[in-house]
Structures are given as C-alpha cells and as structure tokens.
C-alpha cells in the first residue's frame, strides 16, 4: 500500500499525471471520528452514506463518485485540518464532507475557504460553523435552532419554571443558552441551573441538586452515548417522575439504547429533535426500511439522516452544475435547494447555508409494549435563530 502510494506520487511528479484525471470522477473526502469515543456517530453516518450510494448508484452527472474516508480519532482539529489539506493536495478531492464534531469542522473550514472547495457538514451543530467558509453547507441542524425553539415551545405549553442541567462544554453551553433564551423571552423563569463535567459517570449528585429546588420542569443536555441512560436512571433513582416533574431534553436523551437501558423510567420524557426514526412519512418509512435491511436491524438516527441528506445534497448539486465541482458552482447550486427528507421537508437557507426545517417535539410513550418517541407537536420552517439575530 505504502509502496503503491509512493509509486503514484512519484509518477505524478515525474510525468505530471494525476491519477484523478485519468477518468471523470468526483472525489469526496469524508472526515469523521471513525475511531475513539465518537466512533458510533461516525458509523451511523457512514451507514447512511453507504445506503445512499447503494440506492442512487455511484455515478452522477456522468461522473463516478469516489469516497475517501479519513479518521480523526475524536476531537482533533489539528488532525482534521491536516487530513483536509492532504485530501486536497494528495488525493485531489473535490468535496469535503462528514464532520461530526464542531472543532474538527471549524478547522477544516479554513481549508475549504482557502482551496475554494465545497464542504458539507453533516452533523457538527455549533451555530457559527457555516460562517467560516463561504463554500460550506450544513445538512444537520444548529443547537439554537433546536433548543431556542424548544424553550419557546415549553413556555407556550404551560411550563412556567425550569431548571437546566447541561454538560460543561461548548455544545452544552450553547444548549443552555439557547433554551434559556427561548424560555425567558417567552416569559418563563429559570429557577436554577447546573453544569456537569463532560466525563461524568454518576449524575446522582446533580440530580439531587435539581430535586432540592423542586422545579416544575428540568431541561437536560448531555452528549449521546453512555450519558443519557446514566442521567435517566439517576432521575428515576432520585424519584423524579416524568409524570409530575416534566423532563425536557435534546433528542439524545431518549435514543434507542438510552430508552432500552432506562426502561419505563423513560416514559414521559419530552425531547426536541429534527429527526427520529418513528417519524411518519413515506420517505422516512422507505429510508428506515432500507437502513434496517442494510444494518442488521439497527435504526437510523440524526447522524444517519444528516449523512443521507448530505449525500443527496451533493448529488443534486452535481446534477445542477452538470458535474462541475468548483466550490462556487456547487455552493450556488446548493443554496435554496429544497427536498423531502426522511425527517420531513427541508431547505437550504440561501443566506446562511444552514438547514431550514421542521422541529419536532416528542414524548416517550409505551406503544404496543415498546417504548417509543411519539411525535406530538411540531414547529415548521425553523431557521437558525443565531444567524437571524446576527443578520439583524
């Protein structure tokens, strides 16, 4: 492998031939944390990307799509940036995509801006990311888009007081700020808040603090993975019943594995998210079915839908440009694009290059013996409020 690469590089230097020019291809470099703590988010996203390629073929606008995968191993902006640079100078990719984690996306944004390459962020949700490169489009969501909307919704739906609990790091702070802003602006009162360490195996002390205040509702943000179940169990242990104290959270809180681990303790938890595999639409049913088949029954999640829509965006943009891969052309093609995603109707805001989408409110209920996130309210056409404010 190494020798092949050396040979190729040498050939490229000596004869000025680039292997990329040999046939009309579009190369997409995926930069994701395939290994380490966040490996599962990358895996779920990658599964959806593979599914999209399988369903739509690997040729678009007469060009063959070639995907090159690069692992950052976790939060590592220096690595992400180097990988982005290498993808462009070494592998001559046309599009950078993936990006589960904010710091990695921010670091690669510089490369996209400098090399004028189209970049598709399929998950990283900090609001400012898309401002870092004019060639960037995001197909996931932003944290304020979900939490600020959720805060407003909570107040409008009869919740007067809330206690917020978030992980003490960037996304947690954004979630706390977003929710509190939406909630207070709508006239609600924040009766207390606490931030817990990012690596926190046992939440009982923090839950006890919340319980001491005896709030009408608790808003929770924790990163997906181990922690949703851990905090859910701590709530149940400390006797916080979602039937009396409303438990509000970001969708991570009631992911499949978390619900399973929490059991009946998860019933009644209300979450906000832009996607859940139970969303009822034709597009989603087909997507979930195909995804289940390809992945031994596992359900897609937001990372999957972000990757799936990201690939769709790339395909459609390439079709529009007729296979041209210049950053300007692709980003122009992407702006204002609208389609029916498995999550519902979405559009790319031409100003911010972020997704305009429906935000769903769900509650865990027992349906036919199964614990399910049941969609019971929705707010349509939500833009990223952070950038709307910036523009104002």
């Amino acid at each position, binding site marked *: 492998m190494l020798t092949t690469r050396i040979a190729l590089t040498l050939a490229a230097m000596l004869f000025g031939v680039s292997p990329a020019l040999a046939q009309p291809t579009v190369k997409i470099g995926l930069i994701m944390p395939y290994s380490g703590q966040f490996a599962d988010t990358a895996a779920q996203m990658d599964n959806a990307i593979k599914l999209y390629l399988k369903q739509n073929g690997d040729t678009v606008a007469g060009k063959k799509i070639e995907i090159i995968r690069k692992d950052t191993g976790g*939060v590592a902006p220096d690595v992400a940036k180097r990988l982005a*640079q290498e993808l462009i100078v070494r592998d001559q990719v046309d599009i950078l995509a993936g990006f589960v984690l904010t*710091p990695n996306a921010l*670091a690669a944004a510089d490369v996209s801006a400098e090399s004028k390459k189209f970049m598709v962020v399929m998950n990283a949700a900090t609001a400012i990311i898309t401002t870092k490169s004019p060639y960037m489009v995001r197909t996931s969501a932003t944290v304020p888009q979900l939490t600020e909307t959720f805060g407003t919704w909570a107040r409008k739906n009869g919740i007067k007081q809330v206690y917020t609990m978030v992980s003490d790091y960037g996304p947690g702070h954004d979630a706390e700020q977003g929710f509190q802003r939406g909630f207070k602006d709508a006239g609600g009162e924040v009766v207390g808040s606490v931030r817990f360490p990012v690596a926190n195996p046992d939440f009982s002390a923090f839950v006890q603090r919340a319980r001491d205040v005896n709030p009408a509702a608790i808003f929770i943000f924790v990163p997906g993975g181990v922690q949703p179940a851990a905090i859910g169990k701590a709530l149940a242990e400390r006797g916080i019943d979602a039937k009396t104290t409303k438990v509000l959270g970001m969708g991570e809180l009631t992911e499949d594995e978390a619900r399973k681990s929490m059991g009946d303790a998860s019933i009644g938890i209300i979450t906000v998210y832009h996607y859940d595999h139970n969303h009822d639409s034709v597009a989603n049913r087909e997507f979930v079915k195909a995804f289940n088949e390809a992945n031994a029954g596992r359900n897609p999640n937001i990372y999957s839908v972000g990757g799936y829509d990201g690939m769709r965006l790339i395909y459609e943009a390439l079709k529009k440009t007729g296979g041209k891969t210049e950053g300007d052309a692709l980003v122009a093609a992407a702006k204002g694009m609208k389609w029916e995603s498995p999550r519902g109707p979405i559009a790319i805001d031409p100003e911010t290059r972020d997704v305009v989408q429906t935000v769903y409110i769900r509650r865990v209920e027992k349906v036919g013996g199964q614990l399910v996130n049941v969609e019971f309210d929705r707010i349509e056409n939500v833009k990223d409020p952070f950038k709307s404010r910036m523009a104002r």
Partner: protein
Amino acid sequence: MATVSLEAVGGAHGYLRAQTRWRRSEIAFWLATLLPFLLFPAYLQLASQIAITALFAVSLDLILGYAGIVSLGHAAFFGLGAYTAGLFSKFGWGEPLSGLILASALAGVVGYAASFVIAHFRHLALIMITLGMGLLLQEAANSASELTGGVDGLQGVRMRPLFELFPFDLWGRTAYTYSLAALFLTFLVARRLTHSPFGLSLRGIRENAVRMPALGAPSRTRVRQVYTIAAAMAGMAGALLAQTTLTVSLEVLSFQRSADVLVILILGGAGRLYGGVLGAIIYMVARDQFSGINPQYWYFWIGLLLIAVVLFLPNGILAGLDRAAARFRRRSP
C-alpha cells in the same frame, strides 16, 4: 573492549569523545529528513506534524529517558505552548517566531513552578501527580472557555508569513520547513545537553537517585532544571502545532496526547534522543497508512505493532536496532 595501554588516559578522553561525536548514521538521518520535499511533496503536512510530535517526544525523553521522571501529564506544557501561541496571534501579533519563543518561555516558566512539586516525588506517585496536574489544567482550560474557546477550540488564530516571506501554504512546505528547523535546532541543544556534565548527572539520577546526594549532587535542583527545559521544549512543540495548523483545542492538553507521546517514546526507545524521533515517524506513518486503509479498525494494527515491538525489540525499536547492529559487527569483524 579497550585494553590497558600506554595512552590509557588518552583512551579515556578518546572514549568519552567518541560518545559525543557525530556518527555518519546521524548525519545521514538528518539529510534524509529533507527527502520529503523531493519524494513526498503531498505528505509535507504529515511530515510537519511528525516533526512536531518528534520534538514533543524528545522533550519527554529528556525527563523520562535521561532523568527517569515518568510523566503522564506532559501535554500540559504542549498545550500551554499551543494556547500561548494561539492567543498571542489572536490578539493581533501574528508573527510566528516571536510567538514561538514567547510560548516556549511561558511553558518553561510554568514548568519551573511545577518542578518544585515534581522534584519531591518518584515512582507511581510522581506519575499520578503529573497526570492529575495535566487533567486539572485541561479542566481549567475548559472552564475558562471565554479565553480558550473551550471544546470548540480557539477561534481567530492567524499567522503572518514566516519572515514576512513564506506564507503557510496548503501543501505544508512552509509548515514542514519551519517545524523541521525548530526540531533540528532544539535537537542540537538537547543533544549537547545530554552529552554535557549535566546530562551525565541526569543519567546518574535516572540510574540511582539515592546515590546522587551521596556524591554531593543536588538532585532536586537538577530535576527542576531539566523539567523546566523539557517544559519549554514541549511548549515549543505545542506552539508549532498551533501556528502551522491555526487550530488550538482542549485536546492539546489531553491525557490522550500525554499518553500518545509516551507510547511514541517507548516505541522508539527512551534514553537515546533519536528514539523519540524514530518513534514519532514510525507511529504516525503507521497510523496514517493503517487508517487510510481501514479508518474504523486501524488501531488493531497499531496494537499489534506495539506488541510485536515489545516482544521482538525490547526497550524500543532503536535499542533493538542497536543490538542487531552490534551482533552484525561481531559476526563480520
């Protein structure tokens, strides 16, 4: 082995001089570091990060390989350097060299302060205290997210061209030149240091810390000195990373980074300076290649590599190579 001869005393001088002389293999090695410019122009970014990691590993080698201080928190100084360089540029001073020196100096100052604690402990307590201090610093950086940018990383780091002539390009030509030059110059210092009476004294501390006071040696002072120097070098490595990638995030302070550099140093061979450099090259090239082939399970192969090195080349690759070379020489006189 030397036999007694009339010039036995001259032999003693000659023997010690031979230890410090530049070997042909060394010169060949440093010339070879220029090869990526010709052979692998698309790998210069990687080469630059390898050079930075090598510098970081050499700084750890000074305390671990020479003074016997095992640290699991060396990234603290790497991170300090990175944040200093990053913040310096963020607040308007984008000239790289001055930022590099300032970052290195600041890491050295903090290293000096920490050394008063470090010099009092050994063994597991020392390892855990360095680990604890590193983690505390990382948590502090997370808490001070107003300043550091927290998990999202420091935003707005911009570098002026090196010497106002060479901008940091996408290919990494400037980055590699800059990192390599810094590595080489620092390596010269480290090499001289290890061949000096001070270096000998450090090896004495490593070999037998109890005996040193009985020779009248103020071991703790020596430990403090080398810890300060190593911290400054680690800070320089961190600053280089910040300047060549324009990114600084909490990860520069992480336990993972401390552990990685320790693995790299042991892999290459501790106590021989080149061990850190070789370890960085092998580990990072292997990682690049393995993860290129298999982004999801590459670390399986890294694991096998580590296991194989321990089983077949104990005390690191360089020690193994040395033994092989010695055997070869004995066989063919």
